[in-house]
């Protein structure tokens, strides 16, 4: 399928992200390059504000384009604004009416749109967090890498073809390897970058290996069915793969091995047990704001990909997470085991941590366990019901991104002031800056799943959906695992409220960092108290996922 001019508005956010990345890189050249502090600060501010403005605008355009806020009715008068909006919204799905993927490889359905909003929104909050950092050596490079990575995530969310999928993952990951190791003079940061790169390369290899098995299986089916006329680029598209796999009848072991490797490859990206080993080291060593980005947006992108691959390529290997020996199996069964392992191991491993970033890394792994439960729940055959796993999963992803960015943001402010990201650095924060302590409490309680904050409703909905998928055993494990989780979250609050501060001077809270945190905190509260509007939007995704099966 060839590229049409009318496809341009459909991939407008991606085009804009690319333009923004190049613009940031290019505009840095026109700044004053000098060795003095002032020049460095100005360069940093210029790039950061350009990135923030750009990402904010792209977020706004995507939101307008999505039609979640307002759709131009067909009967509306034609004037400049309605025409503009109508053009923007053309080619965007309405209801269950989904346009075909662009060039057979990039879907612009509701799932992609939610992904775009999530990734650009997260990137925007992260850029605000970095605005008041000490000036970077090469700010243009830093921010354009960040934006490029965001672009990669959007492509990950929309990829419907194996090659596109792989390119999207690499476009996301390679900038993140650089960003994780960005502080070249800091041993830990370099170690983080290196580790992240090695693990990432390994996981990409696993993924490619799995893809080759799946492709081989499907194309041999095509040969057997005398479909040799199909060009390679068609066979690699998810829809063709699904049909060919379905034609082959009972899935052969080679297909299952391929699927396993693909799940393992994506498993590294989303950091679930047993593919989580890299994440504590990387999270601890990377610059805190980049940790926030890696732990939220990148992980969320992995889940979007997992959801789409498993749902569209392997619907007939879905299996069952019910703990009955004969029925247990398929990818839901396997993910259920991984989710249970992830929840138990991550929550226990977090208990003895003394470094706040490392602790949050393990907490992030545990949250990935909950997210996996969402992937399992949405695969249940009766998820057309009001309660559905896709909504649960996406709601959780949005909330997780917001609360985790907030928690890491507070750590970033504290680390900037005290020079340490140990838990002891948080000592007496309540006496040094009560507002910051209150924000941190909101984020930590949200992560722990305490109502009425959004983290609770997210967990609650996932558990409802999983219960409905008959995996009650998993719900029980998840609930039990929240108790050790609460213990380590409370240890953070114990430091903040109960420990005496080392120095009693007030802790300065830079303006834009605080702005980012306040936005996150408000979102955590509002999404928790009034989840209904967001659920309505997310239900449109569910309708499509069902239709696409």
């Amino acid at each position, binding site marked *: 399928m060839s590229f049409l001019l009318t496809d341009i508005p459909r991939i407008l956010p991606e085009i804009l992200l690319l333009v923004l990345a190049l613009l940031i890189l290019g505009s840095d050249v026109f700044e004053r390059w000098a060795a003095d502090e002032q020049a460095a600060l100005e360069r940093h501010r210029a790039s950061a504000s350009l990135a923030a403005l750009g990402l904010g605008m792209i977020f706004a355009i995507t939101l307008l384009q999505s039609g979640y806020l307002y759709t131009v009715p067909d009967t509306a008068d034609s004037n400049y604004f309605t025409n503009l909006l109508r053009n923007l919204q053309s080619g965007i799905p309405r209801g269950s009416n989904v346009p075909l993927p662009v060039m057979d490889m990039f879907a612009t359905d509701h799932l992609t749109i939610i992904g775009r909003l999530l990734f650009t929104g997260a990137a925007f909050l992260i850029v605000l967090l970095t605005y008041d950092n000490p000036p970077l050596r090469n700010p243009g490079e830093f921010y354009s890498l960040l934006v490029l990575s965001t672009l990669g995530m959007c492509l990950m969310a929309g990829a419907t073809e194996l090659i596109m999928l792989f390119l999207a993952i690499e476009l996301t990951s390679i900038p993140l390897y650089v960003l994780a190791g960005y502080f070249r003079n800091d041993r830990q940061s370099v170690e983080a970058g290196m580790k992240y790169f090695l693990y990432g390369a390994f996981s990409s290899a696993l993924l490619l290996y799995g893809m080759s098995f799946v492709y081989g299986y499907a194309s041999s089916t095509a040969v057997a069915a005398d479909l040799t006329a199909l060009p390679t680029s068609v066979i690699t598209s998810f829809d063709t793969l699904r049909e060919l796999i379905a034609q082959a009848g009972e899935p052969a072991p080679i297909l299952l091995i391929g699927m396993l490797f693909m799940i393992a490859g994506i498993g590294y990206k989303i950091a679930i047990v047993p593919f989580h080993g890299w994440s504590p080291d990387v999270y601890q060593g990377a610059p805190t704001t980049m940790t926030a980005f890696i732990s939220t947006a990148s992980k969320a992108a992995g889940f979007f990909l997992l959801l789409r691959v498993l749902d569209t390529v392997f619907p007939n290997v879905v299996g069952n997470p019910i703990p009955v020996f004969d029925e247990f199996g398929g990818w839901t069964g396997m993910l259920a085991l991984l989710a249970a392992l992830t929840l138990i191991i991550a929550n226990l491993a977090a208990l003895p941590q003394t470094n706040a970033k490392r602790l949050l890394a393990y907490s992030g792994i545990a949250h990935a366990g909950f997210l996996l439960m969402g992937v399992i729940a949405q695969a249940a055959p009766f998820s057309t019901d009001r309660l559905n796993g896709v909504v649960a999963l996406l709601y959780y992803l949005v909330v997780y991104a917001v609360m985790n960015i907030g928690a890491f943001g507070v750590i970033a402010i504290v680390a900037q002031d005290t020079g340490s990201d140990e838990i002891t650095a948080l000592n007496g924060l309540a006496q040094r800056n009560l507002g910051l302590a209150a924000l941190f409490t909101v984020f930590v309680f949200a992560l722990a799943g305490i109502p009425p904050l959004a983290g609770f409703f997210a967990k609650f909905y996932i558990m409802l959906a999983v219960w409905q998928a008959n995996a009650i055993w998993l719900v029980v494990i998840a609930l039990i695992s*929240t108790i050790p989780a609460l213990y380590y979250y409370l240890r953070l609050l114990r430091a903040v409220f109960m420990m005496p501060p080392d120095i009693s001077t007030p802790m300065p809270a830079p303006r834009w960092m605080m702005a980012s945190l306040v936005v996150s905190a408000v979102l955590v509260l509002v999404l928790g108290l009034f989840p209904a509007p967001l659920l309505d939007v997310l239900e449109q995704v569910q309708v499509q996922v069902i239709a696409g099966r």
Partner: protein
Amino acid sequence: MNMLTLPPTIPILSLIWLSMVLPVALIAVVPASRATLIRVIGTGFALLSLVLSVLVFLAYDQGQSGFQFVEQLAWIPQLGIAYYLGVDGITVPLLLLNGLVIFTGALMSWNIAQRIKEYWILLLLLTAGVYGVFVALDLFLLFVFYELAVLPMYLLIGVWGSTRREYGAMKLTLFLMAGSALALIGMLAIYFGSGLRTFDIPRLAANVNFEQQYQVLFFLPLFIGFAVLAGMFPFHTWSPTGHVAAPTAVSMLHAGVLMKLGAYACLRIALWLMPHGAAEWLPAIAILTIFNVVYGATIAMVQRDAKFMIGYSSVSHMGLVMMALAAGTQIALTGAVLQMFAHGIMTALFFSVVGRMVYERTHTRQLGELGGLGRVMPFAAVMFIIAGLSGMGMPGLAGFWAEFTIFIGVWERYPLLAIIAVISIPVTAAYVLHAIYRVFYADVDSPHLHDLPPLTWQEITGALILAAVLIGVGFAPGILTDMIAAGVRPIAQQLQGVGW
């Protein structure tokens, strides 16, 4: 029959819990240096919530059964969750109890001088949660308020507490949250088991005849999960450590009201919504509660720290409530709710005497070091004696009617357990009288008792209110019992309906 009519347009139940959230916003913007202003705001709104609770009490129509002052709004329609409030004969007295305890607790909090802003914010949030649980008629909403009531406790005890505060705070929080995780399993089971896909409690209560096996399986986590907060043996160990570590007002609220949340949720949710499961498990639970009653009282007798003694007496008295729930008859349930009220007031009075009046001045709670306090602080002695007499079930005080009703109710169902439980009465009398003697009348010349500052008006007012309620209900229990009896009737009938 109601003594007062409220205009139906006033959402009075929402106002009650909001009256605890609004001052949080106010206090957040007041600078921390204006200590008195913060105290006045906090106490003023506590008084407002008490007044609103009294209005509800007066306006509640006892001639009508069912829920009154109902408010219903769609909240998360996708999941069948609504903002649904209402009160019945069970919750009206409990609202009143909470109003009394938070107002007197606020009065007892005037001496908190350290990090005053955070203290009041957390205290009021906690109370908002408690009010919310009592007025919520939607399971999800109830759970949200339940957690809101439990969580601030961690910081309140950890920051402003005394003996082993960090240990006490962490232990309490983990026990209670483990309990609520268990309870959540049971709530999900009701949601899916009933097949109604709603969290609406009255609607669920009208359709309880879903799969019996399912109920039998999930009743236990539901009941035990909430019973942890009610301090049921063997999950009670958090309670004495928590009470001892907590600052006075928090002990008052905690032993006085919060433990009642657990018992209330057991009654309202576990017994009412899963009667088939209840019929299966209640005898086993009754046997556990006998440990609470007798063992709690015995342990209280050997305590040297007065607060530990009160803590274990709470375990014992809450055991009576749980035992009455396990009996599940009309009379027993009436007694259970009355005991929640009586014990709440009594314990609040105990803690305000021991934790505030005595400990804040003498800096010791060891019974052996306090002898002769009666000469120095006669008012405190009188208040302690009133609370103590109510605790040991002296006629003329609220505790008598509650315990009397419970023993009659339990006798109907488990005569043997009733006899064993009666042992707790002389044991209670023994430790209360022992404490009164050691603290107020023993002739010890203790260095702790020299030059004590006089009692403040806040302490005297608070204690007098609580004592007056104990005596008032003691002389005229009818003002509560009729209402409570009508309130528990649907639950007792529900249990009868399944052959209990």
